[in-house]
C-alpha cells in the first residue's frame, strides 16, 4: 500500500471491495447508470489496451472533452494505465459559438502537442474535423478488446495529469500535478474530512474545474468513496435535482461554490418536507468568496428538510495545490467575524467589533491550513504580517504543482527561495489560525465559480464595432441575491449618443459567444470619463469604485453597492 501510483489505488479498491459502487448517474432525463469499483478498474484496463494499440505511450498528453458520460472514467483512467497524461477541458456550451470553440481547442491541442482527443460520443462529428492525429469516443475507448498491457509503474514525481483552469488566459496554463502530489493531497485533506466507506458524495460540478475534478472525481476514486453524479446542464435548469439526489442516496458530502447556496435557496422547487437532507454531514462552500448571507439563506430554507447548520463547512482551494489549502471541519467550524469598516478599508486590518456596530463587515473564515501546508501573509515589501493584517497569501506544501506545462516563460521564479508560491489572493489569519480570503490581486472575476480574466473580456470588446479600441474596462461586482459576481463592461465610443444602446447591446452579445459567460451590465460612457491610473492606463479598480458609487448612472437592482 505504499505505492503512490494513482492507478494502483483504484485497482486496490477493485480488489478489496469489488462490489462497492464507485459512481452512479442521477437524472430525470436519462436512465441511471452504475459502475462498481471492479467494473471501473476493468474498464480502465480495457481503455489501456485500446490506447496501447493506437500507439499511446507514457508521457503523451490526451485531452478529454465532454464530461457527463459514464465512460469518461475509463477514458481518463486508461491514460494513467499507460503512464500518459490526461487533461480535461470544458465542453462546448450553447452560449459559445461552435466554430470559435473548435478553433480554440485545436490551437490548444497544437500548442501542448497533444497526442489525441477523447470525446463524449455526442461531440464526435465536430471533433473528427479537427486536425488531431487521434480522435476517439469514450465508449469506443472503454470497449477496447486487445490484450491488456501491464500498467505503467510511474515514478512518484512524474506528472500524472494536467489541470487547465477556465478562461482563455487560463486555458493556456496547464497545472502539472505529480502522482505523489495528488495522492498526498488526498491523504492530507482527508485527515480533516475523514471520508470513508460510509460516505456518499453528490455532485453536479463540471470536471474541467478543480472542485468538480479533484474533490468529486479523483479523490473519491483514490479513497474508495461512492459518487452520485448529476449533469451540470440538467442541474442549472432544475436545481432541486441535487436535493433529490442527496435525499434518495443518503449523500453525506457535497461541494458547492458560494452562488449555489443562494441559487438553491431561491430557485429550487421544494415543498416543505419533500426532501430529507439529514444525511449531509458536510456541505462545503468553496471556490468563490464565502458569504454568510448565502449560507444563512440556505439554512433558513432547508432546515425544514432536515438540513443541519453544523454541516456547513468552508474551504480555500486552488489547482496549483492540487485542491485544498485550508478547510474547516467538525472540530474547527468556520468562524464568523465582524470587522470594523474603517480599519479594514483604511489600514487593511481586521479589528473585531460587535455585530451590531454600524457598518460592521462580516468575514467568514475558510478554516485552517491543512496539517501539511504552510501559509504566510506578507506585505508588499515581502515581510510577514502579524495576525489580523491583510496581505498577499503565499503557500508551501508537499503537494504543490511542478509548474505550468510547456510554459517556460512563466515557470522561472514561481517559487521563492523558501519554496513558497504566491497565490495572487489576499487575506489574513486570525489569532487562532483561521484563514480569511478576502480578495484577489489580479483583478480576476469569478462568475458562478468560473474564473474570468478581465484582459480576455477587454480584448473581445475592443473589437466590437463602435467601441473606441483601448477605451474598455471590465470588472466584477457583487450580485446580492446570487451570491456571486456579475461582469460589468464599460466602454467609450466615438459614435453619437443615439447609437450607444446599440453598441452596449453588441458588447453584451460579443462576450458570451466567446467566453461562455454572461454580462451583467454593459454601458457606453461619455468620452474621457473612464478613470485612468497615474500611468495613464485605465484603472479597473478605480472605475469599479465609481460604477458602484453611481457615477456612471444608476446601477442595476441586483448589484450590491456595499461590498
Amino acid at each position, binding site marked *: 500500500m505504499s505505492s503512490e501510483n494513482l492507478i494502483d489505488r483504484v485497482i486496490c479498491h477493485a480488489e478489496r471491495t469489488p462490489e462497492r459502487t464507485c459512481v452512479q448517474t442521477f437524472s430525470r432525463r436519462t436512465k441511471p447508470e452504475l459502475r462498481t469499483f471492479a467494473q471501473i478498474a476493468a474498464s480502465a484496463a480495457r481503455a489501456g489496451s485500446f490506447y496501447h494499440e493506437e500507439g499511446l505511450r507514457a508521457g503523451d498528453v490526451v485531452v478529454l472533452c465532454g464530461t457527463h458520460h459514464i465512460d469518461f472514467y475509463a477514458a481518463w483512467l486508461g491514460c494513467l494505465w499507460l503512464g500518459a497524461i490526461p487533461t480535461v477541458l470544458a465542453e462546448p456550451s450553447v452560449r459559445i459559438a461552435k466554430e470559435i470553440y473548435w478553433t480554440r481547442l485545436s490551437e490548444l491541442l497544437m500548442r501542448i502537442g497533444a497526442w489525441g482527443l477523447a470525446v463524449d460520443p455526442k461531440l464526435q462529428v465536430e471533433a473528427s474535423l479537427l486536425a488531431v492525429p487521434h480522435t476517439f469516443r469514450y465508449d469506443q475507448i472503454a470497449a477496447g478488446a486487445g490484450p491488456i498491457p501491464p500498467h505503467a509503474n510511474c515514478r512518484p514525481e512524474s506528472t500524472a495529469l494536467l489541470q487547465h483552469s477556465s478562461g482563455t488566459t487560463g486555458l493556456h496554463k496547464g497545472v502539472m500535478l505529480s502522482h505523489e502530489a495528488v495522492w498526498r493531497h488526498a491523504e492530507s485533506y482527508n485527515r480533516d474530512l475523514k471520508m470513508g466507506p460510509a460516505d456518499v458524495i453528490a455532485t453536479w460540478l463540471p470536471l474541467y474545474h478543480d472542485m468538480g475534478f479533484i474533490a468529486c472525481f479523483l479523490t473519491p476514486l483514490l479513497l474508495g468513496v461512492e459518487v452520485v453524479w448529476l449533469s451540470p446542464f440538467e442541474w442549472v435548469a432544475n436545481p432541486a435535482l441535487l436535493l433529490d439526489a442527496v435525499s434518495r442516496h443518503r449523500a453525506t458530502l457535497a461541494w458547492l461554490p458560494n452562488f449555489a447556496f443562494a441559487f438553491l435557496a431561491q430557485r429550487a422547487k421544494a415543498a416543505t418536507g419533500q426532501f430529507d437532507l439529514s444525511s449531509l454531514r458536510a456541505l462545503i462552500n468553496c471556490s468563490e468568496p464565502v458569504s454568510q448571507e448565502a449560507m444563512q439563506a440556505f439554512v433558513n430554507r432547508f432546515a425544514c428538510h432536515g438540513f443541519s447548520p453544523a454541516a456547513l463547512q468552508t474551504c480555500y482551494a486552488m489547482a496549483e495545490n492540487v485542491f485544498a489549502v485550508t478547510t474547516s471541519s467538525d472540530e474547527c467550524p468556520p468562524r464568523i467575524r465582524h470587522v470594523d469598516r474603517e480599519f479594514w478599508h483604511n489600514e487593511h486590518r481586521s479589528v473585531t467589533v460587535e455585530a451590531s456596530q454600524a457598518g460592521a463587515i462580516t468575514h467568514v473564515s475558510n478554516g485552517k491550513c491543512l496539517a501539511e501546508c504552510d501559509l504566510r501573509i506578507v506585505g508588499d515589501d515581502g515581510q510577514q504580517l502579524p495576525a489580523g493584517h491583510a496581505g498577499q497569501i503565499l503557500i508551501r506544501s508537499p503537494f504543490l504543482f511542478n509548474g505550468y506545462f510547456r510554459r517556460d516563460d512563466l515557470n522561472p521564479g514561481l517559487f521563492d527561495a523558501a519554496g513558497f508560491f504566491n497565490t495572487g489572493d489576499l487575506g489574513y489569519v486570525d489569532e487562532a489560525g483561521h484563514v480569511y480570503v478576502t480578495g484577489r490581486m489580479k483583478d480576476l472575476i469569478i462568475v458562478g465559480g468560473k474564473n474570468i480574466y478581465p484582459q480576455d473580456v477587454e480584448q473581445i470588446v475592443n473589437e466590437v464595432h463602435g467601441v473606441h479600441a483601448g477605451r474598455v474596462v471590465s470588472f466584477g461586482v457583487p450580485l446580492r441575491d446570487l451570491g456571486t459576481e456579475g461582469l460589468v463592461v464599460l466602454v467609450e465610443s466615438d459614435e453619437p449618443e443615439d447609437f450607444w444602446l446599440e453598441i452596449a447591446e453588441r458588447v453584451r452579445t460579443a462576450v458570451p*459567444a466567446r467566453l461562455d459567460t454572461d454580462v451583467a451590465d454593459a454601458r457606453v460612457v461619455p468620452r474621457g470619463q473612464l478613470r485612468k491610473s497615474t500611468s495613464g492606463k485605465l484603472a479597473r479598480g478605480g472605475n469599479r469604485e465609481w460604477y458602484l458609487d453611481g457615477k456612471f448612472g444608476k446601477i442595476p437592482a441586483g448589484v450590491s453597492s456595499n461590498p
Partner: protein
Amino acid sequence: MNMSLDAILKIVREFVERKRGKSVQTIGASTALLRDGYLDSFALVELIADLEKHLNTRLEDGALIPEDFETPETLYNRLQEL
C-alpha cells in the same frame, strides 16, 4: 404540448423585456438566446416557471435543460415532445 411558436416567442420576449427593462423585438425564432446574452443560465429556472404559468401546466422537474433553450425554435420543438 399544444402551443404555437409565436406564443413561445411572445413568452420569451416578455421575459427578457422584464429582465432588461426595455423592448427586445429583435428576438426571432432562431435567435441564439444564451449565446447572444439574452438569457443567462440562472434565469432559466424563472423562465421555466413563466412557461408553466402560460401553459397552465406543471413541467416535470428536469424536463427542460439549457440546451433546449438554444433558440425559441429549439424550445418550441422540445415542448412539442413533452
